[in-house]
């Protein structure tokens, strides 16, 4: 029996929840990191209230949570470089890239659509 090398799949993760009210944001990040370990092509998109995960100056010690932004630093170590934020979601919340804690690529509506439509698998968290 010959083993064929499995084809890499392109995975798009859409993170749409704010960071601390529930565990969606951390779960999505865990999935992104785990997928990258298995050498899949990962896209990580922040959209809707998910853009609140990126705000600068978060200090969640007071509510007994760990800082999500600190965990996002792991993305670089894991080689995840396709990290995006939806421009419309920022605009709707009157936020700009200067309000964000990490370097991130801003995608317009058409680019976001492409990211979702062209992925082999889409995870919505």
């Amino acid at each position, binding site marked *: 029996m010959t083993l064929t090398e499995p084809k890499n799949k392109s995975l798009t993760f859409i993170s749409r929840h*704010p*960071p*601390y*009210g529930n565990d969606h944001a951390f779960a999505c990040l865990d999935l992104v990191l785990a997928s990258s370990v298995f050498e899949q092509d990962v896209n990580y998109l922040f959209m809707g*209230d998910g853009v*609140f995960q990126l*705000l*600068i*100056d*978060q*200090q*969640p*010690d*007071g*509510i007994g*949570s760990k800082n999500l932004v600190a965990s996002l630093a792991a993305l670089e170590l894991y080689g995840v470089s396709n990290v995006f934020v939806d421009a419309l979601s920022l605009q709707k*919340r*009157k*936020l700009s890239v200067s309000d964000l*804690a990490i370097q991130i690529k801003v995608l317009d509506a058409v680019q976001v659509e492409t990211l979702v439509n062209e992925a082999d698998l889409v995870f919505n968290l």
Partner: protein
Amino acid sequence: MNHLHTVNSSGQLSDCTRFLEDGDALLLIEDGVYSLVSDELNNLSESVTVYALHDDINARGLEKYAQDRSKTISYTEFIQLCCDHPKVINWF
């Protein structure tokens, strides 16, 4: 006697505001504090007092969005508000 309304998630404020009466208090907690980023609070009647919980604001990096419209309070003041109002309505 007036009510205390607590809102704990983003996007819940619009349902709550329909029921706000003059003299009521509105308290933003947990993800409810993200309403500070919107201008929805400015549409509320002046007779509604708006509060937001300090630790939840701080956790989410929202200090600079704390508006004149809302008063930032501690957990102790949160408890006091609950004691001062005969009815607390939670918008979860």
